[in-house]
């Protein structure tokens, strides 16, 4: 498999707080990678650096053979290829679900609304939201909002999708409908990186699970290996607390 995204020695500090202390990560096309670890271990920051929302202090992020972490690089074209879905959905509250999805394709790719209507309604249809397309975010349940947020990221046709604990803010009974969306995307071969606390889900679907601890990937491997036979004491400790 070819490497789509490669991180080498990625470092990021906020003041004296070293959030990422040399991350190496290789993601192949069609792979699903899960990042697990305690709160504050650097999962969210790692995803935000890949989307270039946080510039890194040192190291390299290579996407499709291009160094996207080059200081001074215009982040906009890169971000079109890398979708990011947030824990708190972050839908635009003043726009309908459809307008949330269509804003970026129309402004960034210059597509006309008439061109977008068919593919966008197809996306809503596919994720069981056809009857919610004209609703505003505050008229939708958390699960529905998060699915719209995923559709919004998908509408830019990214090469890779990043998910930042997207089920953590949901009521327990709404988690399944969002995980089903991820399952469907997995089936279509979408390349994905998930920061997640859903260990069962990670074990079921991930190609690779990375355990982050204090800004480092302490241990990585196929889920069966990492969950059932963790090598590091710290990993064992963490897993015994969450499983």
């Amino acid at each position, binding site marked *: 498999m070819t490497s789509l995204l490669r991180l080498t020695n990625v470092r990021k500090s906020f003041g004296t707080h070293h959030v990422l202390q040399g991350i190496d990560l290789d993601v192949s096309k069609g792979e699903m990678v899960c990042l697990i670890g305690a709160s504050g271990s650097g999962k969210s920051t790692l995803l935000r650096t890949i989307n270039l929302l946080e510039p890194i202090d040192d190291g390299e992020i290579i996407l499709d053979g291009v160094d996207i972490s080059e200081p001074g690089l215009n982040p906009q074209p890169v971000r079109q290829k890398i979708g990011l879905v947030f824990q708190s959905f972050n839908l635009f509250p003043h726009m309908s679900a459809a307008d949330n999805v269509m804003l970026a394709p129309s402004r*960034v790719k210059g597509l006309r609304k008439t061109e977008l209507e068919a593919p966008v309604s197809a996306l809503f249809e596919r994720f069981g939201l056809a009857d919610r397309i004209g609703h505003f975010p505050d008229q939708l349940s958390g699960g529905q909002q998060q699915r719209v947020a995923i559709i919004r990221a998908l509408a830019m046709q990214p090469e890779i999708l990043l998910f930042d604990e997207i089920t953590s803010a949901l009521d327990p009974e709404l988690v399944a409908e969002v995980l089903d969306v991820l399952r469907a995307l997995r089936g279509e071969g979408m390349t994905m990186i998930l920061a997640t606390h859903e260990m069962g889900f990670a074990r079921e679907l991930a190609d690779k699970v990375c355990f982050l601890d204090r800004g480092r990937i302490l241990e990585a491997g196929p889920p069966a290996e990492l969950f059932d036979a963790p090598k590091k004491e710290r990993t064992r400790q963490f897993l015994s607390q969450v499983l």
Partner: protein
Amino acid sequence: MSEVIEAVASPGRRAVYEARLRKRSMRIAALSTMAVVVAIVVLVPLAPGWEAVKRSFFNGGVFTKTFPGLLNAFLLDIAIFAWSLPLIAIVGLLVAVCRDIQRPAFYPLRLFATIYTDVFRGLPVILVIYLVGFGVPGLGMPRPWNSPYIWGSLALILVYAAYVAEVIRSGIESIHKSQRSAALSLGLSPSDTMRYVILPQALRNVVPANMNLVVALQKDVALLSFVGPVEIFRQAGVYKSLFANFTPYVGAALIFLVITIPATRYADFLTHKRRRLEQ
């Protein structure tokens, strides 16, 4: 059977108690209001100067003679208000957005916007009207560019745009930064993010605050009378001298209130609605 129905229909202990309480407080409110009104109606006319005040402030004859003229002059207030308001909105919005631009090339713009809002929010409105309204025409420009209408209005626009800019900026800052992250993560440019995501939400949040400025502007239009335009306040002054009577001022006050009270009420209504939405 009839006993059961009765039990359901009769109000609970709490409701009975609250109804009694409500009646009692209504009685108290009515009594105290009556006491105050009676005191004013009875006591004020007992003041030694009441007859004179009545003659010079509440003179029916002068009122009927001057009121149509005052109404006519008020049209000028409305006109000044009407052409100033859109300009205030535009300048205020531009200044607010300038203060938010982070790019170094635009630093002078940001600096200028900051100084501008500091200066014009720090000066009394009347002082700006004097300085601009008398100062600029003093440059000896040809008609119509020496008109006090233009420069007086400009003074109002400068001051109010500074206030509006600050209100809008506070609105921009009130939008959570996750909204900006979400927009940027989709590949939107910073300016598109401002225009399509941040500003629409920010402007909606500050509608009540801006409505209060609109109400204040309606009243401050009268200050232009100090540099020349014969609007309602100035016209009332003319009538005062003509009839040696202050009633025209009371007439002018009434005309202002007819406009400003509904506007203030509307602003309050918007504020409450906003607050309810936020809960």
